[in-house]
């Protein structure tokens, strides 16, 4: 289990990195934390011909409060984000989800941007970003553009990034008033890929009814699944046990199209999706100050 040979570049600046990607588009693979890419290379499942190592791009490693929300540089280590008091304050959902991402040794090295660009359907961060309606900044030599998280993920390991583009920053908008969040997942062991996970953001109106619910599920489709049907069930409703249960059923049966693997059949995943959505919603509504 040794990686195949590759051509290695380690730019010191973002511009240099973008120039390399432009020059070797389609051939060059960016290396962020490497905690998914390097195992794949050790198995020789991945054999990139050219690696562009982003680890020297200190300019992409930051967590900054901005406009009531947060801006996170793509090369910020997951562990730094997890420990950041700014994140705990402005994006508790992200802070709650990060401990589920593998293990501390992996998060010490793994980056936020790397995980998002990898777009594993079982990964926590894509689901969290979609639930939080994050906006991603992608940059290439020809300029930069902003991509809403929900449009960034295009299916199994697919993203909206062009081969010469890098994800450079994640902007998290502030949570609206009377909002709360919850993250839950079921994995075989602590730190494993989730069999199913749920990230929920709920916002109440002045009368305690659900104004908006952004629920995303992971490991039940090709990418993070935004549960639109479940949100529809909740919209305008006072979050009672029945309403929450109906929303959870909608998420599991109408929003999710889960795959089967050796750890969980599609049926078990669907069932877990209902259970976890219900539990996550209950927790989020409680945190939002609603007592059912």
């Amino acid at each position, binding site marked *: 289990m*040794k*990686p195949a*040979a590759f051509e290695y570049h*380690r730019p010191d600046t973002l511009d240099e990195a973008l120039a390399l990607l432009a020059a070797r588009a389609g051939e060059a693979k960016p290396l962020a934390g*490497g905690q998914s890419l*390097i195992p794949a290379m050790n198995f020789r499942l991945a054999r990139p011909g050219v690696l562009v190592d982003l680890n020297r791009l200190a300019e992409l490693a930051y967590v900054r409060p901005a406009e009531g929300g947060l801006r996170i540089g793509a090369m910020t280590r997951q562990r730094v984000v997890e420990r950041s008091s700014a994140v705990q304050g402005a994006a508790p959902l992200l802070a709650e989800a990060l401990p589920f991402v593998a293990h501390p040794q*992996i998060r010490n090295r793994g980056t936020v941007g790397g995980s998002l660009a990898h777009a594993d359907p079982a990964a926590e961060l894509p689901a969290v970003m979609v639930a939080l309606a994050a906006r991603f900044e992608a940059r290439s030599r020809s300029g930069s553009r902003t991509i809403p998280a929900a449009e960034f993920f295009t299916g199994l390991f697919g993203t909206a990034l062009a081969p010469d583009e890098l994800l450079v920053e994640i902007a998290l908008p502030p949570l609206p008033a009377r909002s709360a969040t919850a993250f839950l997942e079921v994995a075989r062991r602590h730190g494993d890929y989730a069999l199913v996970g749920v990230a929920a953001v709920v916002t109440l109106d002045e009368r305690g009814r659900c104004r908006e619910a952004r629920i995303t599920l992971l490991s039940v489709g090709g990418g993070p699944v935004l549960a639109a049907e479940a949100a529809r069930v909740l919209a305008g409703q006072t979050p009672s046990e029945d309403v929450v249960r109906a929303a959870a059923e909608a998420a599991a049966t109408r929003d999710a199209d889960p795959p089967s693997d050796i750890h969980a059949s599609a049926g078990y995943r669907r069932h877990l999706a209902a259970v976890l959505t219900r539990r996550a919603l209950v927790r989020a509504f409680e945190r939002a100050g609603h007592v059912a």
Partner: protein
Amino acid sequence: MKDRVAAQMTVNGVPCERAVEPRLLLSDFLRYELGLTGTHVGCEHGVCGACTVLLDGEAVRSCLMFAIQADGHEVTTVEGLAPDGGGAGSESLHPLQAAFREAHALQCGFCTPGILMTLVPFLRDHPSPNEREIREALSGNLCRCTGYQNIVAAVKLACDAPPPPPPSPSLRR
């Protein structure tokens, strides 16, 4: 650039420079280029944790990094834990190593270096952890022999022991 590239780093407080092939894993570099075979390799896909070392004081999987990526950084391996590399007597062990010995926290000892290197920064950040925290901190390291119970006991023992002096330069923050 498939050829060798110069990598300069500090390993256990000692500066070193080698020309490495970019694909050389840090684990293999430490073991075969530097002869620091205390860092063990159990899976090479980042699950077992046996290869855990400190990079600038934080625990990382050395099988999931290329040696060239440690260029300019400080690496600490299990050989760098005890003040003089661990001579014959227990007085030369790091307090955590001594606690492992005291609590019978190792059997075959193969996973042990990775577990020690995981726990050193954990205990720096959590000087008096509870059982739950200890087990979660350990959950990225596989041990087939001990059932983890005595490892948890050793951590508790180490917490009761006086705090360790900074044993090597790279452990200081």
